[in-house]
C-alpha cells in the first residue's frame, strides 16, 4: 500500500493526520457550505450583510417553499426527469446492442466504427450546434422534449458504447460458443445469455449517464425555449436573472437542482466509481 499505512506511524503523527483530513475537508467543502448556509437565511440577513454569521432568523421552510411557489422550479425539475430517464434508457439500449456487436463479432471495419463512436464522444458541442438546431427546427421537434431526448440519447451512446464494448469483451466466448452448438440463434444468445450478465455494467453506466444528461446546460439552452420544456439547469440560470440579489433563493434553487444527481451518487456510489474508472488500473 502506498503511502505507508498510517496505523504504523507514531501516535502524534496519526492524530495530526486526522486533524489535517478534517481541515482539508472543511476547506474543500467551503463553497458548498457557504451556499447551504445562504439558502436558509432571510432576505433581511442578505441585505444587511449578515452573510457569514449565524442566521438571525431561520428561513429554511420560507426559502424552500418560496422557490417552489414563486417560481417554476418544480416544473423544471419535472422537465429534467422527463428528458433524462428516456435518454438514459435509450442510450443504454443502443449501446448494449452496438457494444455487443463490436465486442463479440469479427468483421471488416470493426475498429473503424468503434473509433467513430469514441471520437464522437470527445468532440466539442459547438461543431454540432448549428446543424443540430436546424435539424430540430426542420423536423418540428425544436422546443419540445423530443429534441433533448433524441440528442442526448445519441450523444451519450458514444460514451456508452465505449464502456459496454469493453465490458462485454471481457465476458468469456465459451458461453456463446456452446449456445451456438446447441442451435440457439444470435438474438436469443444476446437477450437470454448476454444481457443478464450485464447488470452491473448497466447499473454503473446508467448512473453516469443520468448525471451527465441531468447536468447538461448547453443543449438545454439551445434546443428549447419555453419554461414548459426547460430543464432545471437552464431554468436555474434564468431564475438567477429574476432573483438578482436574492442570493438566499438562488442558493436554495442551486441546492434543489443539485440534489437528484447527488442522491443518485450516494445511493449508487460503488457503481458510479466503478463506471468512471473502469480500466484505469489495467495496462
Amino acid at each position, binding site marked *: 500500500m502506498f503511502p505507508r499505512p498510517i496505523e504504523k506511524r507514531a501516535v502524534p503523527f496519526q492524530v495530526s493526520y486526522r486533524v489535517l483530513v478534517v481541515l*482539508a475537508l472543511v476547506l474543500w467543502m467551503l463553497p458548498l457550505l457557504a*451556499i447551504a448556509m445562504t439558502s436558509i437565511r432571510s432576505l433581511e440577513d442578505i441585505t444587511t450583510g449578515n452573510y457569514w454569521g449565524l442566521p438571525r432568523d431561520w428561513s429554511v421552510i420560507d426559502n424552500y417553499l418560496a422557490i417552489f411557489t414563486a417560481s417554476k422550479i418544480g416544473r423544471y425539475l419535472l422537465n429534467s426527469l422527463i428528458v433524462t430517464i428516456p435518454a438514459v434508457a435509450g442510450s443504454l439500449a443502443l449501446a448494449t446492442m452496438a457494444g455487443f456487436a463490436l465486442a463479440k463479432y469479427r468483421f471488416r471495419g470493426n475498429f473503424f466504427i468503434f473509433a467513430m463512436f469514441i*471520437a*464522437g464522444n*470527445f468532440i466539442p458541442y459547438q461543431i454540432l*450546434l448549428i446543424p443540430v438546431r436546424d435539424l430540430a427546427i426542420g423536423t418540428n421537434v425544436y422546443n419540445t422534449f423530443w429534441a433533448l431526448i433524441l440528442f442526448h440519447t445519441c450523444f451519450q451512446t458514444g460514451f456508452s458504447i465505449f464502456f459496454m464494448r469493453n465490458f462485454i469483451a471481457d465476458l468469456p466466448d465459451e458461453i456463446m460458443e456452446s449456445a451456438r452448438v446447441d442451435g440457439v440463434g444470435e438474438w436469443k444468445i444476446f437477450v437470454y445469455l448476454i444481457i443478464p450478465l450485464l447488470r452491473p455494467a448497466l447499473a454503473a453506466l446508467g448512473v453516469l449517464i443520468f448525471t*451527465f444528461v441531468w447536468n447538461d446546460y448547453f443543449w438545454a439552452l439551445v434546443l428549447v425555449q419555453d419554461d414548459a420544456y426547460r430543464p432545471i439547469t437552464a431554468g436555474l440560470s434564468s431564475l438567477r436573472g429574476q432573483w438578482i440579489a436574492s442570493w438566499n433563493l438562488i442558493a436554495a434553487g442551486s441546492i434543489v437542482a*443539485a440534489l437528484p444527481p447527488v442522491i443518485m451518487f450516494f445511493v449508487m456510489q460503488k457503481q458510479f466509481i466503478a463506471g468512471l474508472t473502469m480500466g484505469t488500473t489495467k495496462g
Partner: protein
Amino acid sequence: MMSKWALYWKHNQQKWMPFVFLAPATLFFLVLIVYPIVESLRLSFFKWDGLGEKNWVGGGNYVELLSDHRFWLSVRNTFYWTVFFLIAPVVGLLLAIFLNQKIRGIRFVKSMFFFPFVISQVVVGLVFAWFYEPHNGLLNEVLKFLGMSPIAILSNENWVTFGIIAAGMWPQVAYCLIIYLTGLSGLSPTLIEAARLDRAKGWKMLWYIIIPQLRSATFVAVVISVIGALRSFDLISIMTGGGPYDSSSVLAYFMYDQTMFSYRMGYGAAIASVLFVLMDIYIVYFLIRLWRGERGTSDRSILGN
C-alpha cells in the same frame, strides 16, 4: 420445410447479426453527429444569418477571424484553461495520496471530495459567483480579514478568466482524484515491498515506483482535463457571459455568442471548426493509443464528458 430465406438466415446469421445490432446506434450517430460535423465544416465557408440565403465566401470567415481581437482573446483564454487544467491531475494525485488511508470515516471523507464532480456546472458557477461576490463574498471577507483590499474578480478584466478557471478546477480535481484513488488501490504490493526493502522512501518511491504504475490513470486524467478545458462553456456562460468586454470568452463561448446573439452562422461555424481541429489532435492521439492497446495487451481507459 423451411423457406429458402429462413434456411439462409439460419446459416448466415452470424455474418449479418452484428450489422443488425449496430444499425440503430450507427444511424443515430450518422444523422446527429457525423452529418452535423460535415455540415458545420461546409457552413464555415459561407456567410449566413440562419434564415436568408447562404453566400459562398471561401476562406473569408477564417481570414476575418485572424484580424478579430475577440478571437485571439478567446484563443488566449482557451490556452490558459488548458494549461491550468493540467494542474488538476497533479493536485488530484497529491490529494489521492493524502486520502489513501484506512482510518475511520475515510469513505465518507472521500465521497465528500468527489462531490463537486457530481453537481452541475451551473450550480458550481453559481456557488463560485457567490464566493467571489464583491461586497460580502467569502473571498473578500477573507481578504478583508487579512487586511487586503477587496477585488471584484468577475468584473476585473485581468482576473476574471483565472477566477472562472479556479471554479472549473474544483470538479476537475475531484474527477482526477477519483481516477487516482482507483489507480492507487491497484498498485502492486510486492513491488512496493521490494522497493521498501531497498530503502526507497518518499519522493524517490513516488517518482520511480508509484507514478510509473499509474501510467494509465495519468493518461486518462490528462486527456480528460485537456478535453474539459477545451469544452469549457457552462461556467463562463453562468458566471460572466464572456464579459467584461469579452475578456473571459473562450472559443466555445465565442462561437455560441456569434451564432446565437449575432446570427452569424458561417462565422460561428468557422470558430467551431477551429476548436474541432484543435480537439482532433487529442482525439487522434487517444485513438492511436487505443489502437495499439487493442493489438497488444489490452490497455483500456474510460473517459467521461
